[in-house]
């Protein structure tokens, strides 16, 4: 173990020497990593933001329950509220009487530019609206089940959620995320292959050296380590451009969109710390890909005879 740490400078020197001796190969392998990681950066940036969009969307999905006009007594309403609370997946139940509902309706009319005065006459006694409950659910996937449960109760006129499209969006976001992940995985495999090929070439080029090392009794790990470091350095080299890309491009995007993705509903993640995490992930992946690639080669082409 002590010998391992003592020999690290030697291995690093050997790795860099080898990289410069096969500079063209190293660069080509590094650029494969770069391509992979740039795409991965895009993916991570999108996925990270979609995560927060989804979170927002999920919060916005609520069931609007209209209470039948026959249920008007305070006690009955409270009873109903109690029943709603016992339904599974219900997170919160909020009562909104018909006057509040009317105010909300008027706000909506005003916000769409409709003539509020036209509806003025429906205030007070003439209010045709129903008392309502606004229900949040714990799991948006279960919203339909909850709605059906609510309809089974007595004294419910209707239960609606405006979130059918929201749910579709959540599903769409999920598939973007999964599809992207598969794509990135495939690209990573390609990068691993290219790196292992590069390391294979450097192993061939250093064949004589390896034979002598073996001859004088160099330990197997001692022979392997420089190649592993070389792979990691190539991976790291490949990660440099994607890291710069992440910072510059995302910063530009963030500024030009004003921190939101078209609507306030979709706020973008600020550059820090989000971009930092993405960069860490990129560097980590680059080096891991390099390590795995060289590991394959080293084990395959230095197949140890005794």
């Amino acid at each position, binding site marked *: 173990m002590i010998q391992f740490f003592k020999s690290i400078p030697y291995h690093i020197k050997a790795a860099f020497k080898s990289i410069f001796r096969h500079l063209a190969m190293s660069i080509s392998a590094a650029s494969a990593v770069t391509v992979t990681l740039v795409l991965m950066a895009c993916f991570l940036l999108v996925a990270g933001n979609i995560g927060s969009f989804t979170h927002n969307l999920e919060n916005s999905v609520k069931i609007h329950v209209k209470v039948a006009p026959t249920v008007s007594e305070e006690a009955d309403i409270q009873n109903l509220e109690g029943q709603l609370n016992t339904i599974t997946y219900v997170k919160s139940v909020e009562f909104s009487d018909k006057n509040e509902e009317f105010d909300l309706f008027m706000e909506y009319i005003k916000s769409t530019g409709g003539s509020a005065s036209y509806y003025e006459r429906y205030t007070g006694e003439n209010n045709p609206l129903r008392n309502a409950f606004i229900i949040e659910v714990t799991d948006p996937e279960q919203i339909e089940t909850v709605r059906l449960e609510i309809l089974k109760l007595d004294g419910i006129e209707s239960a609606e959620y405006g979130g059918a499209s929201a749910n579709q969006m959540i599903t769409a976001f999920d598939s973007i995320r999964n599809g992207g992940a598969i794509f990135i995985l495939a690209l990573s495999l390609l990068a691993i292959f290219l790196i292992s090929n590069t390391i294979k070439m450097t192993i061939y080029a250093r064949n004589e050296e390896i034979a*002598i090392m073996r001859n*004088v*009794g160099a330990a197997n790990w001692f022979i392997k380590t420089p190649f592993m470091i070389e792979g990691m350095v190539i991976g790291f080299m490949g990660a440099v451009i994607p890291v710069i890309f992440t910072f510059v491009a995302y910063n530009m995007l963030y500024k030009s969109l004003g921190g939101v993705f078209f609507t306030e509903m979709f706020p973008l993640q600020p550059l820090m710390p989000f971009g930092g995490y993405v960069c860490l992930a990129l560097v980590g992946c680059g080096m891991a890909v390099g390590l795995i690639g060289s590991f394959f080669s080293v084990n395959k082409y230095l197949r140890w005879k005794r």
Partner: protein
Amino acid sequence: MIREGCEILIYLENVSKCYKNGVNALDNINLQINDGEFVYIIGPTGSGKSTLIKLLDGEEIPTAGTVSVEGIDVGKLKHRRVPYYRRNIGVVFQDFRLLPHMTIFENVAFALEAIGKDKVSIRRRVREVLELVDLSDKAKSFPNQLSGGQQQRATIARAIANKPKVLIADEPTGNLDPEKSNEILELLEKINIEEGTTILMVTHDITLVNKYKKRTISLEQGNVSADSAKGGYIR
């Protein structure tokens, strides 16, 4: 035939080696070499000389019998331990195998770096062995600037840098003219005496064997056909 007063270093007992392709390279060999001996191994091509070296080096495992060096059962060594065992054994090849992009000094130092020696002791030891093989003035030269004899001396320096117990020289004079061959042999004798290294020299060179008489083991078709302590080419 145990020689009194000497420690047994290499001990082969009923060793046979049969390769996967059916070649019977060694057939029931018994050998004993003491610490500090200088031994020639002679025999025609295909007599099993190379196989013997590979068995001693730990590169091959005997099909039957025991190969023991310094009390270590070489055939039973774990894969992982072989490199560490191999540090006891220096090998010199006919074709030198020096790294062309390194100076002579670096070539010798490389062997010590590869087994993780520290810089200061590497430098000291490299100077020492280059002195021993009389190449101190060529330390900064590259292999292609040296004559064949000088290159062979450099490989010997590399092989003994780690102070191995045994130095195996596989036809070290095969590529050299008689004069240079004598030089190499005298160097090996010097190492044998000064460093106390046991030397096994595989050779085809009858003149050398007859001139510098040492214990001579001759192999023929995988068998020890003669083992003469007095030396000289038998047959």
